[in-house]
Each structure stands twice: as structure tokens, then as C-alpha cells.
């Protein structure tokens, strides 16, 4: 009898050993398709976090001096490989435990040429699936790389996907790509930047197998030029979807946040609410068919994109189990909609100072400013507390309206009017800062709001032990206790500002926290318990 029980015990141990996963992945740009950024890793706690230190790091410019300044990447970790992107659309695969470079994809000269036009060269991440790594290149191309070798399997220009329909998706027309593709059900889903340049925003689905279009048409977020609310406007459009989409794998719906209408600060020539700008939109993943939209700011005059990826959350609201989609916009309001119908659940919870008079030619000070509110920095959701964390910015902007209606007096003849440069209208001397706002999704009420030293540009990543990590623009890296909001760990990076949030993953039972920093010395830092405790110098 005793013998038998012992044998049983041994068997259980063997089972446990063989079932312990080699890896806990951070498989998508925002962890899961629901974009909750809530890692299942739980062995880093507020009690042992003091033992966190750097186990490996990367100086990107040491690997390749041509890598651009800044970094806004959200790393992805799959089966022991960490996939990180940099400015100018480089992609790196590192051994996730040791930092050894497995491969480095350096784009061709098309990206360098594009960087001469666009000062923006950010890239926010990749999708990993079907043995491939998918990324968007700044010059409006999509690349599929072999996940093992980094070899290019295919590159397509987005303008070539639908001849006659997508021809104008080019840099010359104001489009550029900074977002990360998201993989689901054999397809990758992409959007683009360029709202402020008057592009026509879109979401497309491409087949992961060959990067061919998976839908019969793109989903366009605004009308074609010359129709509906864009009938009369010059330099018009907008509605870029410039952060990754969120997907409900159960219902097959895709949710995305749509940017501002253009012109940004002048609305006379774009009458009405300007759907679907500053909105969250749901479409069918299979076909791209419109399902619902919820608009945060009708007829935006202040550049108040819905920018950050929405989150899909299952929660008990008013005693009823619900599936909701939540999003906080640059306008400083946080919304929740029924995921299936788009019915409003929480109708704009303010999490920032809001005071935005209509812009005048002389200029008005508007709150939030052009950075938000909540910019592209993602929220996170903690299922244990039911708290959503919102990364906020408090920085008003001086906005002048355009005066398009005054026809230029050309009676004096061309060439006679010489114009020159002037002094820039600099914003008033106001010190910007940031906020961490916790909202209880069961009530829609703010539980706490804490100030941060700097504007929140990177967003959050949670652990299942109740911690949330975020980085600051001065290179300070923090962890807070989600329940109380109090800081439990602080670290000065030996780098520059932080414009992303970490991937938190495990390799062979050991937990890692991988975060990039930007500025003039873009770097990657990977932390683990027992790592090196040498910190950097404060950033000026």
C-alpha cells in the first residue's frame, strides 16, 4: 500500500515536470488579442521585486549605427525568442534568456529614402505566426520574415494590394506606417498613420500565407474624397488607424481606434460629426463588414484621435456578465461599449482636465493638448481587481484656427508677393506631467488618479501578481501595486526616455521583463530576479 502511494507520488512529480511549460509567451504586441497587456507571469511580486536587476541589455546603435533615434516598440516573446523593432523598421530576434542576436532584419534603402521625407520613423512591433514574423515598414510596405532566420519571405507595397483602389497609399500622399500588424485566423490586420496629412484611413486584412488581400475591399474609415462630409473640403480626410487592432476570437469581430479628421483645427469644410473619426469601430474579421461604431468626439477641432488600441474585457457590470470594448482618447474621455452591439456602457469618463474652446485665428489654450489625454500609450486590464489603468498626459496646447475661407487676392499678379519666415508661436510656459488613472470596470468610477513626473508615453504591462510596469520620459522605470496605486519599485535606466511598455514572459521557468528606451541612445533592457542592480545616471 505504502509502496503504491509512493509510486503514485513519483508519477505525479514526473507529470508536473513534463507539463511545466518551457515558455510563458507574450505572444502579441499587446499580449493577447483582447489587448489587455496582462501577462500571466506571477512570480515577480511586490515582496521580491527589490531583487529585480538587468540580466542582459542591448545598445541598438552598437549593433547597427544606422538605427534611428527613439524607440516606441512593444516587444513580443514567443517560445524563447524576443522580437523587437527599432526606428526605421529594423526587426531583431534575440534569444529571450541570453540576448544573443539570432537575426537582424535591416530594411532596404526605401526606408532610408522615406526617412528624408518623414521625421517619424517609429515602429511599434510585430506579429508572429505560421513560422513568420510580420512587420510594417515606414514607407507603407508589409514584410513577412522567416521566424527562424529573418530571411525575407515576401514584401508587398500596400498601394499595390487593390489596384485602382489603394494606388494613393504612398508617402507623397501623407501615409506612413508605425503600427504593428496583428495575426488572427490566417490573416494579419493592418492600419496606417497620416490622419493629420489628410489621408484616407483604412484597416485591411492580408492573408498571412502570401500577403494577398483577404477582404474584397479595405475598410475605409472616411468617405472617398468628394463624397459625403468630404464633399467640399480641401486637404481632407483623416481617420488613420495607427495603433494595433483588437480582436474577439470568439465572435470574430475586429475593433480599432480611429484617428482625427483633417484639417485638424478647421472644420468649416467638413460638416457634421465626421464619422468614423475619433471613434472605435467594429468590423467582421472574415469580411471587413461594418458592425458598429462609437464616436468619442463628434466634429473634432482639436486633434483628439482615438489612438491607443481598444481593450476587450469580460466583466460583471451591474451584476450582469458582459463583454465590453473600452478605449481612452486624446480628448481625455474613457468609454466602454457593448462588444457585440456597440451600445454605450460608460459614456466618456473624464480622466484629464478638459476645456477646449473653439480655436480662433489668435489662438486659444486647449486642454487636453494635441498630445492627449491618452495618446498611443496602451491601457492595461487587471482581471483580479477589475481595474483598467489609463496612461494620461496633462499638457495644454496653444491652437490657432486656419482661415481658409479668405480667398487670396491675386490681383497684383504672381511673383509679386514675397513672404518669409516668422517666429514660431511657442506654447506658454507650462510644465507637462502625466497621470495613472485606475477605473473599476464594474462601476465605471475612478478609483485613484496619481501624478507621474512626465507625460505618459509608453503605457502599461501587468503581471498576474498585481503589478503594473511603466516607463517615464526621464528614463525612470517603475512598478506599481495595481490595487493601491502605490509605487513598489523604481529604477533609473542606463538609457533615455521610454516610449513603449515591456513584454513579460518566461523561459524555462524564469521570468523576464523586457523594455526598450529611446532618445539618442535607443536600447533594450531585460530584467529578472537576481539580475545586475547597477542603475544609470539620471537623464536631463
Amino acid at each position, binding site marked *: 500500500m505504502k509502496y503504491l502511494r509512493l509510486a503514485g507520488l513519483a508519477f505525479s512529480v514526473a507529470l508536473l515536470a513534463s507539463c511545466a511549460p518551457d515558455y510563458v509567451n507574450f505572444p502579441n504586441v499587446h499580449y493577447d488579442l483582447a489587448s489587455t497587456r496582462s501577462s500571466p507571469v506571477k512570480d515577480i511580486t511586490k515582496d521580491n521585486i527589490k531583487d529585480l536587476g538587468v540580466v542582459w541589455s542591448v545598445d541598438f546603435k552598437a549593433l547597427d549605427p544606422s538605427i534611428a533615434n527613439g524607440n516606441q516598440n512593444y516587444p513580443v516573446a514567443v517560445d524563447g525568442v524576443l522580437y523587437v523593432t527599432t526606428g526605421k523598421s529594423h526587426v531583431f530576434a534575440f534569444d529571450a534568456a541570453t540576448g544573443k542576436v539570432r537575426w537582424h532584419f535591416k530594411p532596404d534603402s526605401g526606408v532610408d529614402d522615406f526617412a528624408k521625407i518623414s521625421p517619424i520613423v517609429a515602429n511599434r512591433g510585430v506579429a508572429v505566426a505560421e513560422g513568420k514574423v510580420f512587420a510594417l515598414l515606414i514607407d507603407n510596405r508589409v514584410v513577412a520574415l522567416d521566424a527562424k532566420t529573418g530571411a525575407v519571405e515576401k514584401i508587398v507595397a500596400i498601394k499595390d494590394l487593390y489596384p485602382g483602389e489603394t494606388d494613393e497609399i504612398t508617402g507623397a500622399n501623407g501615409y506612413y506606417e508605425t503600427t504593428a500588424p496583428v495575426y488572427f485566423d490566417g490573416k494579419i490586420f493592418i492600419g496606417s498613420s497620416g490622419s493629420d496629412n489628410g489621408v484616407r484611413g483604412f484597416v485591411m486584412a492580408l492573408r498571412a500565407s502570401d500577403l494577398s488581400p483577404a477582404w474584397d475591399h479595405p475598410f475605409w474609415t472616411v468617405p472617398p474624397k468628394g463624397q*459625403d462630409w468630404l464633399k467640399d473640403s480641401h*486637404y481632407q480626410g483623416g481617420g488613420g488607424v495607427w495603433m494595433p487592432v483588437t480582436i474577439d476570437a470568439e465572435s470574430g469581430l475586429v475593433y480599432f481606434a480611429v484617428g482625427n479628421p483633417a484639417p485638424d483645427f478647421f472644420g468649416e469644410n467638413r460638416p457634421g460629426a465626421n464619422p468614423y473619426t475619433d471613434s472605435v469601430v467594429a468590423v467582421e474579421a472574415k469580411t471587413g463588414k461594418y458592425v458598429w461604431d462609437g464616436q468619442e468626439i463628434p466634429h473634432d477641432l482639436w486633434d483628439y484621435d482615438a489612438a491607443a488600441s481598444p481593450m476587450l474585457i469580460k466583466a460583471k457590470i451591474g451584476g450582469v456578465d458582459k463583454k465590453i470594448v473600452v478605449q481612452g482618447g486624446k480628448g481625455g474621455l474613457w468609454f466602454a461599449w457593448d462588444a457585440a452591439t456597440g451600445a454605450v456602457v460608460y459614456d466618456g469618463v473624464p480622466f484629464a482636465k478638459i476645456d477646449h474652446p473653439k480655436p480662433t485665428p489668435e489662438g486659444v489654450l486647449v486642454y487636453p493638448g494635441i498630445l492627449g489625454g491618452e495618446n498611443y500609450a496602451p491601457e492595461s486590464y487587471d482581471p483580479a481587481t477589475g481595474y483598467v489603468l489609463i496612461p494620461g498626459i496633462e499638457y495644454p496646447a496653444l491652437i490657432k484656427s486656419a482661415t481658409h475661407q479668405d480667398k487670396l487676392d491675386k490681383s497684383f499678379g504672381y511673383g509679386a508677393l514675397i513672404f518669409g519666415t516668422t517666429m514660431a508661436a511657442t506654447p506658454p510656459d507650462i510644465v507637462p506631467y502625466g497621470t495613472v488613472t485606475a477605473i473599476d470596470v464594474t462601476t465605471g468610477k475612478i478609483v485613484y488618479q496619481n501624478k507621474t513626473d512626465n507625460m505618459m508615453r509608453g503605457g502599461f504591462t501587468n503581471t498576474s501578481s498585481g503589478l503594473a510596469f511603466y516607463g517615464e520620459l526621464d528614463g525612470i522605470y517603475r512598478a506599481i501595486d495595481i490595487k493601491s496605486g502605490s509605487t513598489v519599485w523604481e529604477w533609473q535606466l542606463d538609457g533615455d526616455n521610454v516610449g513603449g511598455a515591456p513584454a513579460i514572459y518566461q523561459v524555462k521557468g524564469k521570468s523576464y521583463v523586457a523594455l526598450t528606451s529611446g532618445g539618442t541612445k535607443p536600447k533594450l533592457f531585460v530584467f529578472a530576479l537576481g539580475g545586475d542592480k547597477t542603475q544609470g545616471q539620471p537623464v536631463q
Partner: protein
Amino acid sequence: MIFARGLASAALLVAGLLASCSSDNGGPVSLRMDVQSWSVTPWRADGSHQASVGGVVLQGGAPLASAVVEVAGHRSEPVGPKGTFNVSVDRSFPHTIDVRVVSPPGTGAQARVTVCYPIRILHVHENGADHGQVVVDALIVTDSKVAFLRNEDWAVEGTVRGADGKPVAGAVVALTEYARSGTPGAHVELYSGSAPTDSNGRYRLFTVPESDTDVTLRVTAGNQTYTLPPNRVFNLPEETSSRIDIRLPAGGTVITDRPPTLVSQIVPGARWRVLVAGATAAGDPEEFESTVPDTKGRFQVRMDKAAWLAGPVWFEQTYLVFQDADLEPGDRVSGKTAGALAAGTRVVVPPEAVRGP
């Protein structure tokens, strides 16, 4: 001899055609769409401009459940058990969708769905000055707010020269928005950039930001980027093109922002987007003469009487036209209009969408 060879070729061709139209099961494979043409239905926020069209693949009149169809050259899909499939159609712009059977291979079975504005012919008369020519007054039919002619944007153009006054080739000129670039932690959201300068140092860029935006200027030449002095910006003049001639500094990277190193003036020129409807002789798609539609969609076509009597091919095509003078309704446009670039693809209007006077 030649005659006999011709006969043999014809016989081979017929045999080949027959083979390509049938499959192993005997009967010919055919593809039928429920709708062959749609009127353009302008974009609506409720998605009602999107439509679904059914199709069916038949063999000898019976559903062919094993077929695979290819839609618009990019999407392949097996048909359902009844040989049916669906194509979603964005009806908000003129275009065509070609559908063909790719499995079984070699059947040649295909169909086309056309989305276009219907054309109504209002009046046909002989050209008084040229009796061999007809003048056709016609109408682009729409029941909605559509701008057939729009002022798209203006240009900023000029030259880039070195400190020695010689043109700099291969330089890129870009405009960015100052407000954001001057904001801590912010990103430069607005931009427009030129193609590299030509051998005369000439550049041109479009997508000029809205006015009253503080705009900075950057020039990238070689590996060096040149900028305006700190805190100096342009407020570009409205509703006109501009010319900015730039002379790069001999040392440093700052462009001195006054003449003669930076000369800015207003110049004519604007870019227009226009939907052109026209008619050509069959087989001669570039030879046409039409006019810019007015706000109601009325336009006028001129063509040889013989071609008209033989049956013209009606088409719709969007053009981007850059020219000094304003483009106005009634202005003549042709396949040879200077500064005109076709945007999108040309759509042939099917006969059922053209109504006579």
C-alpha cells in the same frame, strides 16, 4: 496553300476553345453573377454603400461544388455545396471586379461586376464647324452629393542650390509641423516631402498643411539635414502654390532665412481631382475629347461621326490635373491634357448603364 493553312489554324483554334470551355464531366463550365452592374452609391456611415453580390458556378447547368473562384485577381475561394459564393462590393467609387473560375483549370469561365455612374445621353448634334464630328451632351447620373471636380491641393516648389550657387541634385525637401516638433516628447505629425531634386535642383511637393500652422522646412542633401534657425517657421500663404528657393550654407546645417539664401514667393498652380466621363471609338481608348462635368454632372463629348455611329465605348476615369489656371466645369479634357495623370483605373460603362436621349 495559304488558304489551307489558315483553315487548319482556325480548326485548331476552335478545338482549343472547345477544350478550354469544358471540363472532365462533359458539360461546359459557366460563371454567373446575380448582378452585373451597380450604380455608384456614395459612401454612408451606416455602411449601406457596401453590398454583397452572389455568384454561381455551373457545369452543364448543374452546380459545380468543387469549383474555386478567384475574385479581382487576389482572393481565391472554394464555392459552396450549391456552387455559390459571395463577393462584397464597395459601391462608392467606379471600378470593376473580375471573377473567374480557377479550378477546374482552363475553363475560361469568368464574369465581371461593374460599379459606375450611369450615363444619360441628353442631346446629339452635328458639330457646326466640323461636319464629320458629333457633339454629345450627356449627364453623369447621381442622386447624391458628389463633387466631380475638386481642388485637391497646392504645390510648394523651387530649387535647392549649394553655397556656390550650383543646383543640388538628389536633395529632398520636406515640410513638418513646428508645433509638435517643438513639444517635449512629441512627434512631428505633419509632413510633406518632395521627390529628390532633378539635375537643375528643382523640387515640388504637395500635401501642404492647413494654413496658420507653423511649418518648418528641412532639406536632406547627401547625409546632411539642413533646417531653419531655431524657432523660425513659415505660415504658408493660403489657396495658392508657393515657390521657395533655397541656398544651402557653406558651413553648418542652418539655412539663413532671408534673401538671397531663402526666397519665398507666390506662384500660380493648383492640383485638381476630376471625374471624367467620356466616349471613345472602340479599340482606341486614349483618343477622347470631353469636358469637366458641372456640379450637376453635365458634360460634353466630341467624336468622329463614324465612330459614334459605329457605337462608342463610354468610360469613367478620375484624373489629377496640375496646371496654372483654375480648372472649371466645361473645360476641355482629353487623353493628351498636359499635367493630367490618371488616378485609379478606367471603368468601361456597360451598355445597360447608358441611356439614350
